[in-house]
């Protein structure tokens, strides 16, 4: 890996140079909550000043740019009794992501495993993913972040460059030649020994700030053993089956497909819509049989898929510990608590 260091003001230059020629997506403040804390989201930006590099976790990940909530898989032209199918992967330009946190980068790495590197890669995802240029940025851990437990607190790959705030300057890790070339447009330096020390100090500082924890030892096995545990029922009683957790999760990718005919009867479309395994009809089949009719069985499934099934298939869990689902869940169902209760096997 190649490292460089540059003055903070240079970042603005870099942004302006990149934004002049590319579409850039970054974290911005979209409002304040009741306690007057800022609410952040990823949107397209053209002004460096609107980007909030010190943002805390966004409510929603940058999902719409790689897994849109609704996406046409294909469209049809209908003529008499014949039809013509057109497939469009809905990617037409590269996007620069200016400031993704490690958890969100790791989320993409996990998605890559199933949507890009496994059998039947999904071109709709791949087309977008291959056109992402990612500038990562370090974060300040929030009380709900348990990414460290999930091994997602640092990103080792899946980005083009990653910047770390060292006070007056940024330390940058460069992974791709594209990033290397981009950086030629601003003034950077070779980091010195003291910069390395500064970097390690800052990392150590950050590590201290992780408070939320999940014990993942033997988790896949424990989940299996506790399949019939009563704790699931207790969580299920609270769950609203609203699907929010899956929608805000950077790694949830399940979907449903709907075909519709346009009202002029001349065209039709097949649309993919992100779904959530907590919704009542997730496993419902023709004739009305539902393989998971109770809320607790669906909630349990979400944990099984993430912390057992995915581990079995890809040696890691499908959760980066960003804590978004727990923060957005109105019922207060949080991953660390659920897992602790399953491990404890005791009543909450």
């Amino acid at each position, binding site marked *: 890996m190649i490292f460089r260091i540059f003055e903070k003001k240079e970042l603005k230059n870099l942004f302006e140079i990149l934004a002049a020629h590319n579409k850039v997506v970054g974290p911005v403040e979209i409002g304040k909550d009741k306690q007057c804390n800022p*609410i952040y989201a990823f949107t397209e930006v053209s002004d460096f000043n609107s980007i909030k590099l010190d943002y805390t976790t966004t409510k929603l990940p940058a999902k*719409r740019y790689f897994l849109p909530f609704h996406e046409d898989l294909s469209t049809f032209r209908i003529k008499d009794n014949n039809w013509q199918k057109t497939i469009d992967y809905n990617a037409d330009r590269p996007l620069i992501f200016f400031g993704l946190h490690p958890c969100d980068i790791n989320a993409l790495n996990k998605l890559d495993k199933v949507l890009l590197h496994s059998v039947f890669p999904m071109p709709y995802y791949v087309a977008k993913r291959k056109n992402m240029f990612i500038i990562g940025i370090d974060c300040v851990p929030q009380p709900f972040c348990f990414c460290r437990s999930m091994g997602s607190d640092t990103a080792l790959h899946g980005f083009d460059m990653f910047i770390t705030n060292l006070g007056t300057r940024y330390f940058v890790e460069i992974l791709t030649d594209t990033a290397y070339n981009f950086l030629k447009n601003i003034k950077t330096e070779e980091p010195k020994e003291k910069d390395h020390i500064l970097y390690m100090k800052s990392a150590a500082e950050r590590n201290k700030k992780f408070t939320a924890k999940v014990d993942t030892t033997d988790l896949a096995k424990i989940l299996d053993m506790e399949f019939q545990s009563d704790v699931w029922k207790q969580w299920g009683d609270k769950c609203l089956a609203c699907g929010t957790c899956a929608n805000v999760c950077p790694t949830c990718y399940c979907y449903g497909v709907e075909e519709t005919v346009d009202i002029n009867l001349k065209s039709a479309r097949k649309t993919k819509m992100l779904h959530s395994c907590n919704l009542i009809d997730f496993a419902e089949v023709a004739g009305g049989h539902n393989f998971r009719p109770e809320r607790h069985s669906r909630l349990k499934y979400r944990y099984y898929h993430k912390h057992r099934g995915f581990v079995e298939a890809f040696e890691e869990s499908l959760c980066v510990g960003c804590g978004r689902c727990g923060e957005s869940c109105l019922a207060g169902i949080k991953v660390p608590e659920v897992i602790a209760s399953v491990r404890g096997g005791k009543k909450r």
Partner: protein
Amino acid sequence: MKAKESESKTYLGIPLYRPKVAFFEFSSCEGCQLQIINNENTLLDFLSLVEVVNFREAMTEKSDDYEIAFVEGSITRNDEAERLKKIRKNAKILVALGSCACFGGVNQLKNRFNNIEWVKKQVYGKHPIDTAPVRALEEVVNVDLRIYGCPIKKEEVEKIVLHVVLGKSIDIPKYPVCMECKANENICLFDLGEPCLGPITRAGCDSWCPNNNAGCWGCRGPAEDANVGYMKKIMKEKGFSEKTILERLDCFGGFAQFPELKKKGKH
């Protein structure tokens, strides 16, 4: 209301059935019918799919020969119930149009008063007036299809009619509004300190109110498997009064079957 192209439409070579449709209204604001005329962009395509034979709000001709009856409004007088039964006899498919028809809508709010005489006196003084407790259509006749919402969403009506014409099954979302709200990337109203019934209300409106930064009032009734009991608890924990919660839940009548709502007003 005949479309010029009288040749029948086909889809993938299959001739489509062009149903004769009629619109009727009972106690309501007639807004749902208005919504149907309100889709200026697709109205002509829509009209070519069906043959409208009865639409009092827009046309003078009327006919009793129809297959689909769209019925708006709730039943608040006995003569209305009789009229509805006649419509049921004539129609193959009876569609309840909007929350008034599906649940009684805002009209059923008067049912929360035990004393109907008090209600009458509030508005008409001593003048005798004929009224009965408000009923949803299905409390009087069988209803084949329900189009939820106050008001209905014109896109949904179009979709349902199109599906009837095509012979496709009609899928109204079973999940709650939050699902659509998240896809629309709204800030959750609870973060802003506002109440919202999105987590327990049936989706399909594309989170209309939350998109406009206004909390959901449950006009489409409960989602399937709605966890009303726990939702009430959550709202209380978030600092909303019992009154605020109940006023939202009882506003359109959709949640009437839940035990959480079985309390009546004092009059």
